């Protein structure tokens, strides 16, 4: 089964060179990749028919315990077939859609589409949640690149970034949820998570995990309040919209929720939340669909509404809900992709994207018009189309769940709007006389027709003969979703049921909407404030707010003043040390004066402190140099008095050399001194330096309370002569025990001085002679 991923990835890799090589035929050739995968997945149909699953494992990152375990059950097979099936049609369609564009564009598009398909297959097939997350984010990335495909258009770039921020960010939230699952159960295998769902639900993290996963799914599937990115994503080329933003990627959220519905089955709030969010999304999206102008925008809003229906269905319990979910996923993928293809052909032909400005296109695009009508009849939920069956199941699921009346009313109204939208998008541009288009740039070609015709007729074929597809796809998928085998009777005719009554109601309202479309549209366009509220205002608020915070912190921190940078660093050190001292586990501990005062040492220490103060106070730099020399020599004496003659000698030599060198530097600098800081600045600096000194004092004073580990020192003392043949332990440590350290240190000395040597090149007499 790993071959599925490998073939898909290989297809993505060769797409671009293949396009260069084959030119216009590359759409056809590359469509073989998804077609082969379609067949490969279909071959497993027998294995999953009884609700079972095929599992294949190979080790991927053994050190992290991440395995590439692939798991194919009925539900992932439904997705796999949709992904590869529609993928095949999209690839073929793209070959014609990009026919007039440069070959490089086509190659890039095909490569991205196939890469996206790889990511999608990986997401739905992987059993390990970490692996799934990686593929999940890869779909967001490829979606970003496809939305921004026309990178020269600012709105495409904006929409691409928006979708990436929303879906990618949601992915990170999902990742947090996955990590919490891993922490709670100690496994990332979904099969095991499902088996131990009781344990997960009982853990204190259960609520947090559920919320995190829901947020991840809602961002991907464009649910309220993240619904705004999907309509904007229509900036992508139409084949990509048909594929990513209606048929497959946006259903990943549904896929995830459906998967975890089994895990959180015993958590009632999970289902309730889904029903509420789904209903809200349906309402908002239906309103926006009525108000939208663009052809693709109308379709996008209706997609959001459909996703809302699916979320609501997952929130409902029972066998019927599972069948309804699966049926609706299939039906929606078929008719919505077909409609997007038709919209693409119409826009491609006229260059006009506004639905209101399109009319009478049937004369130029007769077959496309037929396909659009067929697809929209399925969308409207009319018999004998598969859309009708799925809607019957939707109402049945609602009615059998005993939910209160509000969601049912919402569902009826939203379905009516969908019915209306279906009528408008298929009839208006192709048959209405208003805004008649008199000429088209490109006609329809057979290649452009394959996709929509196949999908649209598929809708009616499945509707007429639902048994086969019911046993092959719907049954196993619904069983996998439900958790135990369901005997599905996927039927066109259910008899005279309450559902049928609701369906008739829906269609009647839908027809009314088609008739009064323009009036409703105009009225809704007047309510700006309401739509601003349910638009992407929140997104802009968050993004602008983040940018403003970044701008503010940059303004404060990065102002180009070296003094400011130093002050910030010092202040952070002071604050950190103070927190560690006062709030840390060790606490503040000041040893009482221990009476072991050594007069000589004390005097020298006080001398060093006085020298430091004199360095600050002296205005002349020469005086400061002398004072700092005094500090250095005083410290050397301290070393001497405490049994460190090596240090004392080194310190004296270094101090002398420093004075010699810095004097030479001083001689070359202007002698005249002026204050470089104002009085106020000096006061503030003194306060900061004083605070620094204070925390250092407290830290050093409480340091003596910490017991010292002398084992290393003792080891060096024991072995220095016997193994290192040296009596001076300090030197043996330097040249033997820690010799490699010393080697590094002399290398640093060498580099620093070579750099200084190079920096000061040209300061010698030779240059002066030239001058």
């Amino acid at each position, binding site marked *: 089964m790993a071959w599925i991923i490998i073939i898909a990835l290989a297809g993505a890799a060769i797409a671009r060179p293949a396009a260069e090589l084959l030119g216009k035929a590359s759409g056809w050739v590359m469509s073989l990749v998804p077609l082969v995968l379609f067949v490969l997945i279909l071959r497993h149909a027998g294995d999953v028919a009884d609700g079972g699953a095929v599992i294949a494992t190979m080790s991927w990152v053994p050190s992290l315990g991440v395995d590439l375990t692939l798991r194919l059950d009925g539900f992932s097979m439904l997705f796999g077939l949709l992904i590869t099936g529609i993928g095949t049609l999209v690839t073929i369609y793209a070959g014609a859609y990009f026919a007039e564009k440069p070959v490089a564009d086509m190659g890039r598009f095909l490569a991205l589409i196939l890469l996206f398909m790889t990511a999608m297959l990986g997401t739905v097939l992987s059993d390990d949640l970490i692996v799934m997350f990686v593929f999940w984010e890869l779909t967001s990335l490829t979606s970003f690149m496809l939305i921004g495909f026309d990178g020269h258009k600012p709105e495409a770039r904006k929409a691409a970034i928006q979708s990436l921020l929303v879906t990618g960010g949601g992915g990170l939230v999902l990742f947090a949820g996955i990590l919490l699952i891993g922490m709670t159960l100690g496994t990332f295998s979904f099969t095991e998570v499902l088996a131990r769902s009781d344990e997960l639900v009982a853990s204190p993290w259960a609520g947090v995990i559920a919320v995190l996963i829901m947020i991840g799914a809602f961002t991907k599937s464009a649910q309220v309040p993240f619904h705004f990115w999907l309509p904007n994503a229509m900036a992508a080329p139409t084949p990509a919209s048909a594929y990513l933003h209606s048929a497959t990627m946006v259903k990943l959220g549904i896929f995830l929720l459906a998967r975890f519905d089994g895990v959180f089955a015993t958590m009632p709030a999970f289902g309730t939340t889904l029903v509420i969010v789904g209903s809200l999304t349906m309402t908002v999206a239906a309103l926006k669909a009525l108000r939208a102008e663009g052809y693709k925008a109308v379709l996008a809003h209706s997609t959001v509404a459909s996703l809302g229906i699916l979320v609501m269905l997952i929130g409902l319990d029972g066998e019927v809900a599972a069948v309804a979910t699966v049926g609706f996923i299939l039906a929606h993928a078929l008719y919505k992709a077909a409609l997007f293809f038709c919209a693409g052909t119409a826009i491609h032909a006229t260059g006009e994207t506004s639905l209101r400005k399109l009319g009478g296109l049937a004369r130029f695009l007769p077959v496309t018009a037929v396909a659009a009508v067929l697809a929209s009849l399925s969308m409207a939920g009319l018999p004998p189309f598969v859309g009708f069956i799925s809607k019957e199941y939707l109402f049945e699921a609602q009615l059998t769940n005993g939910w209160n009346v509000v969601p049912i009313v919402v569902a009826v109204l939203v379905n009516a709007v969908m019915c209306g939208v279906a009528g408008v998008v298929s009839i208006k541009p192709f048959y209405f006389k208003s805004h008649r288009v008199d000429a088209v740039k490109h006609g329809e070609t057979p290649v452009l027709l394959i996709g929509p015709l196949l999908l649209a007729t598929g809708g009616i074929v499945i509707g007429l003969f639902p048994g086969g597809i019911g046993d092959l796809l719907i049954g196993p998928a619904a069983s996998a979703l439900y958790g135990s085998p369901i005997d599905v009777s996927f039927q066109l005719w259910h008899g005279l049921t309450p559902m049928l009554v609701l369906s008739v109601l829906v269609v009647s309202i839908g027809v009314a909407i088609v008739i009064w479309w323009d009036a409703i549209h105009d009225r809704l366009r007047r309510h700006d404030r309401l739509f601003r509220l349910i638009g992407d205002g929140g997104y802009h608020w968050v993004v602008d707010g983040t940018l403003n915070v970044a701008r503010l912190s940059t303004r404060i921190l990065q102002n180009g003043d070296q003094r400011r940078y130093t002050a910030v660093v010092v202040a952070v050190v002071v604050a950190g040390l103070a927190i560690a001292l006062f709030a840390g586990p060790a606490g503040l501990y000041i040893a009482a004066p221990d009476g072991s005062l050594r007069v000589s040492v004390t005097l020298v220490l006080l001398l060093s402190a006085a020298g430091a103060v004199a360095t600050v106070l002296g205005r002349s730099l020469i005086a400061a140099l002398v004072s700092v020399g005094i500090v250095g020599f005083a410290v050397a004496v301290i070393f001497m008095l405490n049994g460190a003659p090596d240090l004392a000698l080194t310190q004296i030599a270094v101090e002398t050399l420093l004075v010699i060198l810095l004097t030479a530097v001083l001689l070359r600098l202007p002698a005249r001194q002026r204050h470089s800081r104002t009085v106020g600045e000096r006061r503030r600096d003194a306060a900061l330096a004083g605070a620094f000194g204070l925390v250092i*004092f407290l830290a050093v004073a409480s340091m003596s309370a910490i017991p010292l580990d002398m084992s290393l020192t003792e080891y060096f003392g024991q072995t220095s002569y016997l193994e290192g043949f040296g009596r001076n332990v300090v030197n043996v440590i330097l040249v033997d025990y820690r010799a490699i350290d010393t080697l590094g240190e002399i290398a640093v000395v060498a580099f620093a001085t070579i750099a200084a040597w190079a920096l*000061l090149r040209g300061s010698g007499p030779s240059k002066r002679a030239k001058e």
Partner: protein
Amino acid sequence: MNLVYAFAIAAQMGCGVYLLLSRHGMRILIGIVLLSTATNLLIFVAGGLRFTAPPVIEPGLQVLAAETANALPQALILTAIVIGFALVSFAAALMLKTYRSVGSVLTSDHVDAEALGSPFDREAPRNA
């Protein structure tokens, strides 16, 4: 005794930081010298100052006598002193070079890499 050490180290470090905050390159340099000296002393004190005999094995003995100073921090400080010297010398060379090319030792005049003030204040005229 350790309070006196703490006071001396704190005084040196405080003065070092005050100098570090200056705009004059030479004073910053002297601040670094003070800070590195104080840090060495701090490490020295951290090693414990219980004995004053140097850590040298007496002739005739095979191992170090018990009551000798801690050798490990001494070895660390010894290299630290030399490295600190190299650092300050390099910084001094850098400052001298900067003075020669810019003509000022004040960091407020060193604006070639990054001008003073918020970067956003300069965006407007550039875009206009």
